[in-house]
């Protein structure tokens, strides 16, 4: 019940902003691309479809898509990829957060003075970008390679940060800091070969990959637990401010509304949306990365479920699910499914 109240309040706080268009599909290999909106069955994507915060674009092995962002940037989504667009309120301003859960996505952001640059999240890292063209390649085990063509990208993971410039790339494996930047100009990055290599690593040592992602899931949960009391404190302040507003009239009411209530409402929305962002990031990690790993491993060991490697994977996997169920789910809504 508490979960539902949270969501209803969020809708009230977000108001019309929740329905603003954040991107538009300008190219699609019909019918090989789907749009998954929260709480709805996936639909086939078509030219001109609008994307809003919370929507995912899912391509099959046979289709690609290209999006135009509301601020003029472009996003090219390769085959067999899961991409999600979100908008969070940060410091009272909207910030676009794009996630790649699997596959590869090429980003080209235009620099617009006064606009905040978007943030790109992958299962293992977060990339802050500045006037950039770069590609994120996310393998089956969540390991990621960033390759920058132009501009700068700060890749953060596991408490470490690496700054990349044009012509550089970096790998981030689950649960670890970014590796050493490498020269990406020497030869084109072969994502297919990289994915095969990571798949081999996943099958050899699945427990290690799950533990890395569990750490990331716990980081999301930690952020949620920091935000919950702040959000509840501001929610109480907002309720009190709304009550007080009802007792005022005329100029006093208008002044109180503009100077007191509006800032409190903006801060409450900030806390809520950021909390939801971490929860949805946890859901994405659990669904697209951990869930897919479960599928791959269960099929690989279907005939030999007692195998110690598989059993080790299941034990680590169950620990990840405990964090998800107890620390992420309370901020999710069934419609997020």
């Amino acid at each position: 019940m508490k979960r539902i109240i949270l969501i209803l309040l969020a809708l009230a706080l977000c108001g019309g902003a929740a329905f603003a268009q954040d991107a538009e599909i300008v190219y699609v290999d019909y019918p090989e691309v789907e749009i998954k909106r929260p709480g709805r069955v996936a639909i086939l994507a078509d030219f001109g479809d609008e994307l809003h915060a919370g929507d995912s674009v899912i391509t099959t092995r046979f289709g690609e898509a290209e999006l135009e962002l509301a601020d003029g940037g472009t996003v090219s989504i390769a085959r067999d990829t899961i991409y999600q667009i979100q908008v969070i309120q940060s410091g009272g301003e909207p910030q676009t957060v794009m996630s790649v859960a699997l596959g590869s996505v090429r980003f080209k952001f235009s620099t617009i003075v006064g606009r905040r640059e978007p943030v790109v999240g992958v299962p293992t890292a977060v990339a802050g970008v500045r006037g950039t063209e770069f590609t994120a390649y996310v393998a089956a085990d969540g390991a990621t390679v960033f390759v920058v063509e132009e501009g700068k990208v700060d890749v953060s993971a596991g408490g470490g940060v690496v700054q990349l410039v044009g012509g550089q790339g970096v790998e981030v494996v689950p649960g670890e800091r970014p590796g050493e930047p490498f020269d990406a100009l020497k030869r084109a990055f072969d994502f297919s070969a990289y994915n095969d290599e990571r798949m081999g690593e996943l099958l050899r040592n699945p427990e290690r990959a799950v533990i890395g992602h569990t750490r990331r899931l716990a980081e999301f949960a930690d952020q949620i637990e920091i935000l919950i009391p702040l959000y509840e404190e501001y929610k109480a302040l907002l309720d009190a401010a709304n009550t007080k507003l009802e007792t005022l009239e005329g100029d006093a009411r208008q002044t109180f509304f503009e100077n007191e209530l509006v800032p409190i409402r903006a801060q409450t929305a900030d806390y809520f949306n950021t909390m939801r962002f971490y929860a949805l990031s946890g859901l994405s990690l659990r669904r697209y990365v951990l869930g897919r790993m479960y599928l791959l491993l269960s099929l690989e060991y279907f005939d030999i479920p007692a195998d110690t490697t598989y059993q080790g994977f299941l034990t680590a996997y169950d620990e990840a699910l405990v964090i998800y169920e107890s620390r992420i789910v309370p901020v999710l809504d069934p419609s997020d499914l």
Partner: protein
Amino acid sequence: MINERCTINVGEPMKTRYLAATALVVLLLGACVTAPPSQNEGRVAEVIELINDGSVEALVNQSHVPFFFDAELLVRSTDIDLMWSGLRKAGFEIAPVGFAVEPAGPADYPRIADTFDMESFFSPAGYFPEDAGWVVVDSSAGQMLILLGDRIGRLPVIFGIARVR
């Protein structure tokens, strides 16, 4: 004159057979109306045959998206394809006889797992169909549960498959 032409004069044995046949047709029609494809043993047997011998493409087309495999939700048709292909490659097979068909309800989700994902999937506001049915089968991987509901063509849609814990 007209009435005489239209009158069929049947004898007693003929009348009995006629009435019995009519009753059988009515019963069969009634069964069709009351038992949805998901709980119709003949249709369920056809789904099992499809799982055992049908093409992976046909299986993917007969599968709901999202789909549950054990307690995991597969939200991409690519992953559902991967699952059916992988099961086929692993030699997975269901015993074609001896299966049990039971009505299914939204409160049944703990049969798969008592988790947020399953509870949400099984809720009527989620993806749970009104005429859902469980099929309990013996397979090469032990006893399994299959959730069927709705229909595509004359066969019920497969909503998920899970090993009995």
